[in-house]
């Protein structure tokens, strides 16, 4: 991280400050879901859990929207709803909405 003054550096939030990131949100279509558990297995943030064959996001979630679960789901039952965003002094500049690749 470049160009921070001493006083700015002193005000960098701590690594567990929830205001530094806004986690991603995925939604599950429970009608399509076959409870195979693939998404839970591959989630690198260990933020998905399956209780009584119903998959959901743990709270607080640590989803970084890698979208691995969306891609691996054999039933296409997972949809990305909200992107992961860096906020505060790490804020990504000029981000738009989530979109599939456009031809």
């Amino acid at each position: 991280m470049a160009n921070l003054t001493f006083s700015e550096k002193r005000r960098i939030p701590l690594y567990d400050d929830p205001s530094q990131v806004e986690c991603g949100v995925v939604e599950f279509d429970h009608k399509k879901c076959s409870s195979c558990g693939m998404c839970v297995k591959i989630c690198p943030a260990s933020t998905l859990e399956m209780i009584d064959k119903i998959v959901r996001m743990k709270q607080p979630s640590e989803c970084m929207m890698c979208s691995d679960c969306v891609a691996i789901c054999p039933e296409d039952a997972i949809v990305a709803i909200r992107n992961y965003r860096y906020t505060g002094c790490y804020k990504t500049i000029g981000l738009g909405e989530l979109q599939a690749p456009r031809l």
Partner: protein
Amino acid sequence: MNNREQVIEQLKIGWTPTEEVILKRRSVRMYKKEQVPEFMIKRILEAGRFAPSAGNGQPWKFVVLREPEIIQGVTETTIKICKLFKSLIDYRIPGKRWRLPIAKFNIMLKPADLHPVPFGAVSLIADGKLGLFHGAPTVIMIFKDVRGISNPDLDCGIAGQNMALTAHSMGLGTCWVSFAKLAFQYTGKWKKRLGIKYPYKFITSLAIGWPVGEPDGIVTRPTHEVDWYENGIKKVVH
């Protein structure tokens, strides 16, 4: 219709095979134990060899690791270092609140390394919840030649992406793993074991293997502002 017009008409209705590989590439974090055939890894290295670099300097050194003992060893060293960091600056554990000023001081020194994301990964690796190479049977480590002209880090990145995309085009999975740098930055053990010395410096590594399931697929990504200058006008596109 001439050839170019035909190509353009095709582009309007579908992706090229290269685009498909790029769009479908996901970071694979679960691999089968089965080893990847040697010739495939050699083909992947060829893609790295043919990457562009500043002044065609090719300021890199690739190290292929297919010995579980070495892959496991680098992982264990990295876990040890993560545990050490965690024991120094993790103040969230009950009774360890006194580490807070130490954590604050370290965040000032290394804000990029102690953002919630890398620090979260340090915690997960230290606790054994996140595997470093995710069980991949082959790892290609990329070292830069620090004497490289212009921007050798970028050149290593370009060569790495060439290799990653080639691997996905073959149905393999890859994941970029830069955390292994801890094992080279803070200890001499693996530098010595692998014979890495000046002018080589660890940049990143690529875990390669057969993925569990079918992880590659098209997903959504956020758009990003792009400035566009044309006909004397500036516009912003997404």
